[in-house]
């Protein structure tokens, strides 16, 4: 039994080395910076969301003004956003992407995705957007309860989203019932700014 154990021990160690080696080998074969599947799916969700939301007329200067999707903070999407929005049109409008670390730069956007990196500043961010008609989206615990409009969360391994309709109404945003019925509806927490 000892000899068998010895063989299996070596087999085990060999496999460990094999896994480690194949990890490096396997990864370099993949494209550098391939975004994870999670963000590919979230980008597809963003594309869907804009199709179910109506902005007040004043949000767009002309009939063909594009819909601007802003990413605030550390960008988890990378080029996947552009790839997802490429050749797409919503209500006759194209989609463009803008990125910045400062909320001031994104005030002309129609949608702002708030990155996890901004988790400590959510309150200030949402307050500064109070008078705008921007759809705020994030993936932070409690974002919708704090006044954000859409928030991603996981149910086991599947992506879900919650929507705060009372945060959207005063902004003149109309969210289709098709989207609302697939969402978890959330109200603004008492005491949240």
């Amino acid at each position, binding site marked *: *039994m*000892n000899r*068998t*154990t010895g063989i*299996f*021990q070596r087999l*085990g160690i060999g*496999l*460990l080395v094999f*896994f*480690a080696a*194949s*990890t490096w080998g*396997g*990864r370099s074969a*993949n494209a550098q910076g391939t*975004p*994870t*599947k*999670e963000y*590919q*799916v979230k*980008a*597809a*969700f963003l*594309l*869907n969301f804009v199709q179910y939301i109506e902005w007040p007329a004043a949000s767009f200067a002309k009939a063909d003004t594009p819909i601007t999707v802003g990413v605030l903070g*550390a960008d988890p999407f990378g080029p*996947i956003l552009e*790839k*997802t929005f490429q050749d*797409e049109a919503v209500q006759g409008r194209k989609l463009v992407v803008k990125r910045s670390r400062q909320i001031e730069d994104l005030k002309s956007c129609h949608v702002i995705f708030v990155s996890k*990196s901004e988790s*400590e500043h959510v309150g200030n961010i949402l307050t500064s957007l109070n008078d705008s008609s921007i759809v705020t989206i994030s993936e932070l*615990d409690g974002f919708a*309860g704090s006044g954000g409009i859409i928030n991603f*969360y*996981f149910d*086991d*391994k*599947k*992506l*879900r989203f919650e929507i705060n309709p009372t945060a959207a109404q005063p902004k003149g945003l109309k969210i289709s019932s*098709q*989207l609302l019925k*697939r969402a978890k509806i*959330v*109200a603004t*927490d*008492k*005491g949240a700014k």
Partner: protein
Amino acid sequence: MKLHRKRNRSVTTTRRSVASPPRNRRWLLQFCVCGAFMASAAIEGRSQDVEPATRPSADQQQPEVAAAKQPDEFKKMSLDELMNVEVTSVSRRESTIGQSAAAISVITQDDIRRSGATSIPEALRMVPGMNVAQIDASNWAISARGFNNNTANKLLVLMDGRSVYTPLFSGVFWDVQDTMMQDVDRIEVIRGPAGAVWGANAVNGVINVITKDAKDTQGALVTGGGGSELRDFGAAQYGWQVKDDVFARIYVKHADHDETVFRSGAPGQDDWSMTQSGFRLDGQPSPDNHYTLQGDIYSGETDLANSSENTDLAGGNILGRVTQKMSDGSDVKLQMYYDRTQRDIPATFVEHRDTFDIDFQYHVPIGKQHDVTMGLGYRYSTDAVGNRVITFVPDRESLNLFSAFIQDEIQLVPEKLRLTLGSKFEHNDFSGFEIEPSARLLWTITKRQTAWVAVSRAVRTPTQLETDLTIVAPGASLIGNKDFDSEVELAYEAGYRIQPVDWLAVDIAAFYNNYDDLRSLELNGTIFSEENKLNGQTYGVEIGSTVQPTEWWTIRAAYTFLNVQVQTDPGSTDVSSESLEGNDPRNQYYVRSSFDLPYHFELDCTWRYVGELETQGVPSYMAFDARLGWHPTDQLELAVVGQNLFDNRHPEFGTGAAQHEIERGVYAMFTYKW
């Protein structure tokens, strides 16, 4: 110094001793050392949804990745199709524990399911730093960072905040700690002293088993199967919505386990069966308010060697918890539970125990830099022992434990440096007042790297095993020591976590622990007594990592190194120190490779190596488990699991003729939900 205490607890270990009749002093010594582990002072764990230095979130991560797709494929999908896509990532698991200034690991529901683990001890094997040894069909020796034994007493174990170690010997009877494994949301394991938050006896770690909220287990579920070692098992559960914000579930389960074998190959006569039923109710009348009511009852029996009778096990518990968030960002939690256990080992001993516990916690952020949590608790535990071969003097004991703790997380440099200071204050009936302070510092080097250091003091309070256990046998006797004191640990720990790329995360923890007043077994003439005349040092390293080379392939690996040294104090006539050093393996590793295959198949292969236990004469072993699962629809899952496949049997713990060997086993199961 010590108040008079009465405690009577049955010593499960006596059951094993009865199987092999006393032959010489060495046997009695081992018996006493084993028996000595039983009993423990009231250890107050803080019941709650697990909050070590940080708060791991409720997020799951479990990849169930299908073949990798191009972004184009996703953008063509409708909302409903997107909501059906399954996503996994290393990041999600790591993000929750990345901010912890402690050696913490999280076992998720997917880890449990895919590893083929059918019990909590089996699930614990994958955690670095845990020493999990199966003694026989229903008994386990589980510890972290040294001093493992069938009555290991330095680990605190909680089920949804309910402490499950027995005060008899400060250890856990693993044969009655069960739940629907499908309902386990996660198991959080903290290695190292968590005394400041969890109280005494969390000397080497805390294990918290957290079950899912009732609203996450709606609908019907039926599961069942059978095999060679896990002979047969079945369970059924139903969850429903009681009214607007109130959800409930009930379950019933039963399992029969086959016997193991002795070293000689003779049948181990330790087969066991258990039936358990329970419920959980969760209500959330508003986003700020949540209440839970849950309970279980169980009844089972284990075969007793060389006897036509069985050991009877029975018990039940009920727990209620309310949490409320306030408008100023603070929150309060109140929890109460009642727990009853009955253990009847014919001809050896009987113990019935009732425990009542109430716990209150208040958490409040103060300004931008301080985050304070404090708590108060009281536990009352009373038991009655029927003295037979093993006697406890007195045979009826009621214990009171009062506890308070306070902890402050201070942002020294916001988002860069965080200092956590805390301490637990307890008063128990054995050693009086105990104080367990701790300081932890977390340095967030970058968003992908964190490092931490900690210094803590923890105690393992005296138990009935030391103070009341009395054995009189020809040629040797053991008298309880009413002056037995707490064991004290000073722990120095450090750790480092890095996630250099999204698909690789590594977590390293190292420690050096200094122990004083460890329990010694002194021999004077023919009389044994338990005193505090040993001291010890342990040090070790634990490494855990997760690698995801491709969308469909994930590897989890853990490595543990441990060195235990024990010395006698001057004037000691101890005879047990050598065996204490050899109860833990020096090296262990665990690797599980998970593959998501086409056509909804999944394959998991696990290799684990455990080093030898020198003084026990248990050789090192390597075990291989494999699970093949198939989930053709969302509702149905089938699986075949093989355990210990390379070896027809091997021992993991135990000495001499009483040593049991764990056999190779295969089982198949189905799960159907609707």
